[in-house]
C-alpha cells in the first residue's frame, strides 16, 4: 500500500530539482586537506613498493599537517568574527573551532614526528606485520630485524598504514570539534575512534599487552558510542531535530515532557565524558595508555582529549546551555570524582605510563571545571588549558619512550631511580614536564590551572575550586615522587639506558618543552587567541 501511495504522490508531483546550499570551501579546507591526504596515504600503501612507503608517507603526512595549518592561517586573517556555518549547517567554523583545529594540528605534528621515528626503537614503535601472531618464530624475527641479506632490502620495517590512519583520526577529531549537529558529531566520533582502536594493538614490543589494550579500548569504546547514539535518539525524540541549536530552542521554551531531554542528555554526556577519560568513565585509560605504543599514547592522550573537550564545550554551551541548572550539580560531582580518582589512584601506581594515565584523569577533572563554566572566560580558559596540557603530554610520552632496557621501554618506576646520574639532560627535561603537569609557576600548567580556576571562581564555584586545589596538591605529590626518585636515588647497576633520539623525536620533545615554557612565561598571545570569540550559536 505504501509503495502505491509513493507512486501516486510521485505521479502527482514530480520532485523539484534539489539545489545544495553553497559550501564555504575556504573555511573547511584544513579538514578536507587532512582527510584527502589520508585517502592519498591509503593509495600510497596500495601502489608504492615497500621500501619507498615510509618516506613517502612521512612526507605526505607532514606536508598535509603543514598545508592544513597554512590554509587555516590564511583563512583566519579574514574570517567572520562570529563564525560561519557551512555544509548545510553541519559544520560550524567559529573562533573556538579554529583554535581547536590549530591545537590539534600542532599536537599531531609532534605526535607524527614521534610515530615516524625509527632510531629510538629500530624500525619504529609499530610492528612490521601485525598479522603475525605474537610469540611465534616469525614474530621474534620481525622484532629483532630480519636477516641483513634479505632480498627486499629492508631489515626493519613498520606497518606504514599508521600514517593514513593517524590522519583519519585527526580528521575525525577536527570534524568532532566543529560539528554543529549530533549526527555529524557521532560519525566524527567513530572516525576518530576506529583508527585509534586499531593502532593501539600495533606495538612492536609486548604485543599481547598491546592487543589486549586494543580490544579493551574497542569494547568499552563501542559501549560509549552506543550510549552517545542512544542519547542522540532520545534528544531527537525530544526536539525533533539533531541540530544543537534546535535542541537548545526546544529546551528553552517548550512544555514537552523533560524525561526524554534529561535521559538523552545524560546518555550523550556519558559518551562524551568517556572519550575525554573523565571521572567514573575512565576505566579504559590506564590499560590503553600502558599497552599502546608510546608515540600513539602521546597522540591519543593529547589530541583525543582536545577533541573530546572541544565536543563537550560545544554541546554544553550551544545545545544544553538553557538547562544548565539541571545538569550543573551532576557535572560538579563528575569533576570531583574525576579529580579524586586521578589524584589518589595515581599515588599507588608503579608504572610510569599508568601514572601519567591517572594524571590525565585528574586533568580531565580540572578541564571539566572549565567546561561547565559557561561564560566566555570559562571557554577561553578551557581552550588554553587544552593547548598547554596537550603539548606537555606529547613531550612527556616522548621522554618516556627514551628510557629503555633490553626489553624495550623501562616503564617501571623503580627503573627510573637515579636517572639524573645517567642522563642529567633527560632527567631535567622530564622534571620540567612533570612540574608543568603539577602546575608549578613558570610552566604552562600553572597558567592553565590559574585561568580555569579564576573563571570558575568568578562564576560562583568556590567549593569546587577548593577541592580542585586539594586534588592538585595530592597529584603534585606523585609527580614530585618521580623527581625525587630520579635525583636522590642510586641508579641500579643493571638499570635502563637513555637512548639518544634521532632528529624526529628530538624535534617533537623540543617542540613540547619550548611551548610548555613559552606558555608559562608569555601566555598572553595564546590567551588572546583563545579569547577571540565564542561559539556560533546558530
Amino acid at each position, binding site marked *: *500500500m*505504501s*509503495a*502505491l*501511495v*509513493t507512486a*501516486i*504522490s*510521485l505521479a502527482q*508531483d514530480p*520532485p523539484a530539482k*534539489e539545489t*545544495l*546550499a553553497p559550501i564555504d570551501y575556504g573555511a573547511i579546507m584544513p579538514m578536507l586537506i587532512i*582527510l584527502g591526504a*589520508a*585517502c592519498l596515504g*591509503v593509495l600510497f*600503501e596500495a601502489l608504492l613498493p615497500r621500501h619507498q612507503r615510509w618516506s613517502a608517507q612521512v612526507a605526505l603526512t607532514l606536508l598535509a599537517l603543514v598545508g592544513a595549518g597554512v590554509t587555516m592561517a590564511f583563512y583566519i586573517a579574514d574570517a567572520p568574527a562570529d563564525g560561519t556555518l557551512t*555544509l*548545510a*549547517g*553541519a*559544520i560550524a567554523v567559529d573562533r573556538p573551532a579554529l583554535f581547536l583545529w590549530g591545537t590539534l594540528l600542532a599536537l599531531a605534528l609532534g605526535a607524527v614526528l614521534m610515530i615516524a621515528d625509527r632510531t629510538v626503537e629500530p624500525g619504529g614503535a609499530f610492528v*612490521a*606485520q*601485525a*598479522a*603475525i601472531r605474537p610469540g611465534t*618464530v*616469525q614474530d621474534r*624475527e620481525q622484532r629483532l630485524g*630480519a636477516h641483513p641479506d*634479505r*632480498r*627486499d632490502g629492508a631489515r626493519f*620495517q613498520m*606497518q606504514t*598504514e599508521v600514517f*593514513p*590512519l593517524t590522519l*583519519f583520526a585527526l*580528521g*575525525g577529531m577536527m*570534524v568532532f570539534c566543529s560539528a554543529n549537529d549530533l*549526527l*555529524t558529531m557521532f*560519525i*566524527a566520533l*567513530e*572516525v576518530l575512534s*576506529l*583508527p585509534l582502536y*586499531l593502532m593501539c594493538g*600495533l606495538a612492536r614490543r609486548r604485543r599481547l599487552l598491546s592487543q589486549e589494550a586494543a580490544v579493551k579500548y574497542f569494547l568499552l569504546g563501542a559501549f560509549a558510542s552506543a550510549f552517545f547514539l542512544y542519547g542522540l535518539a532520545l534528544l531527537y*525524540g525530544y526536539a525533533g531535530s539533531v541540530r544543537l541549536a534546535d535542541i537548545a530552542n526546544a529546551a528553552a521554551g517548550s512544555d514537552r*515532557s523533560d*524525561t*526524554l531531554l534529561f*535521559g538523552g542528555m545524560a546518555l550523550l554526556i556519558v559518551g562524551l565524558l568517556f572519550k575525554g577519560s573523565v571521572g567514573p568513565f575512565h576505566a579504559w585509560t590506564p590499560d590503553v595508555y600502558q599497552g599502546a605504543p608510546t608515540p600513539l599514547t602521546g597522540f591519543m592522550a593529547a589530541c583525543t582529549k582536545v577533541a573530546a573537550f572541544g565536543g563537550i564545550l560545544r554541546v554544553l554551551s550551544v545545545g544544553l546551555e538553557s538547562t544548565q541548572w539541571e545538569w550543573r550539580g551532576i557535572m560538579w560531582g563528575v569533576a570531583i570524582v574525576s579529580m579524586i580518582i586521578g589524584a589518589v589512584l595515581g599515588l599507588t601506581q608503579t608504572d610510569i605510563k599508568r601514572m601519567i594515565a591517572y594524571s590525565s584523569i585528574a586533568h580531565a577533572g580540572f578541564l571539566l571545571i572549565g567546561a561547565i563554566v559557561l561564560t566566555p572566560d570559562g571557554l577561553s580558559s578551557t581552550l588554553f588549558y587544552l593547548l598547554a596540557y596537550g603539548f606537555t603530554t606529547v613531550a612527556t610520552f616522548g621522554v618516556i619512550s627514551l628510557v629503555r632496557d633490553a626489553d624495550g621501554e623501562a616503564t617501571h618506576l623503580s627503573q627510573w631511580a637515579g636517572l639524573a646520574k645517567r642522563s642529567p639532560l633527560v632527567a631535567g627535561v622530564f622534571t620540567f614536564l612533570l612540574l608543568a603537569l603539577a602546575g608549578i609557576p613558570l610552566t604552562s600548567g600553572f597558567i592553565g590551572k590559574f585561568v580555569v580556576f579564576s573563571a570558575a571562581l568568578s562564576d560562583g564555584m568556590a567549593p569546587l575550586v577548593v577541592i580542585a586545589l586539594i586534588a592538585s596538591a595530592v597529584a603534585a605529590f606523585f609527580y614530585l615522587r618521580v623527581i625525587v626518585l630520579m635525583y636522590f636515588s642510586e641508579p641500579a647497576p643493571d638499570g635502563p639506558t637513555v637512548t639518544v633520539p634521532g632528529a624526529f623525536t628530538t624535534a617533537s620533545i623540543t617542540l613540547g618543552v619550548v611551548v610548555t615554557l613559552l606558555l608559562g612565561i608569555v601566555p598572553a598571545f595564546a590567551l588572546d587567541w583563545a579569547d577571540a570569540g565564542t561559539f556560533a550559536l546558530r
Partner: protein
Amino acid sequence: MITLAQDVQNTMSTGESIAFWVLGPLALFGALGMIFARNAVHSALFLVLTMLSLGVTYMVQQAPFLGFVQIIVYTGAVMMLFLFVLMLVGKDSSDSVVEVLRGQRLAATILGVGLAALIVTAIARSLTEVTPVGLQGVEANGGHGNVENLGRSIFTDWLFAFELTSALLITAAVGAMVLGFVDRHTRGRKTQRELVEMRFRGEHDRPSPLPGPGVFATSTSVATPALLPDGSVAPESLSRLIDSVGAEDLDEEREAITGSAHGAEARALNPSTREGESS
C-alpha cells in the same frame, strides 16, 4: 488509498491490529527464544525471527525504507555474518559458565531488570503527551514519500555526514588488512633457492641433509645408525631421542657388507629390494 493512509494517523486499522497481534508475539517469542536456546545457532535463528517480525511491523507502520533496511542489513547481512562466525568457531563450542565474580549473575539480573523498568516507564511517561504523526500523506513530509525524503535529506542536509562515513569504511577496510594480511616474504617461508644459498653460505650446520639410517644399513629401524663407507658409524645419523643400537651390535652386518665374512650378498645393495632407506 490516500485517505486511508491519513486515517491511520490516529487510529489503528483492523489490518494493522491483526498484523500487530500476529507479529508482536512472534517477535517476543523470538527474543525469549534467543536468550533461552541452548544452541548458539538456534539462538541466532530466533534473533532472525525477531528481526523479520520487526521489519514487517515497520512496513505496516508506513516505514518501508526502515523495514527493508532492517531485513536487508540486519537480518540479511549482520545476522548471516554472525552465523558464519558461529559456524567457523564451531557451533558446539560454548563459553565457560563458571562465575568469576561471586553473585555476578544475580546482580546483573537485578540491575538489568531495574534498568529495563526505568527505561520503559520513562519512555512510556514521556510518550503520553505525544500526538502521533503519520509518515505519509499530504501533511507529513511535504507530501513526498518516506524514501524520497530520506534520499533528499541524505544528499542535501546530511551530505557531509554521509560523505564522512566513507572515511569510516576506508578505515575499516585498511584495518582488516593490517590485522589479517601477512606478506609472503615476511611470513618466514623461504623459497628453495634461498634455502640452498643459505646452506652453502654456511648458515646451516651442513650443506646436505642429515644421513638417514639406511645408507648401508640392513634394518628399517630409525635406531640403526648409518655406516660410513669405511664401516664406521656416522654420528649425525644417531637420533638424540632414541637409544641407538650399539656399534658392536652391528659388527656382523658390517662384516657382511664389507665382504670380510661370507661372500657379499648382492641383495643388500640392490635398490629394488633394499628397505629402510627412508626410515
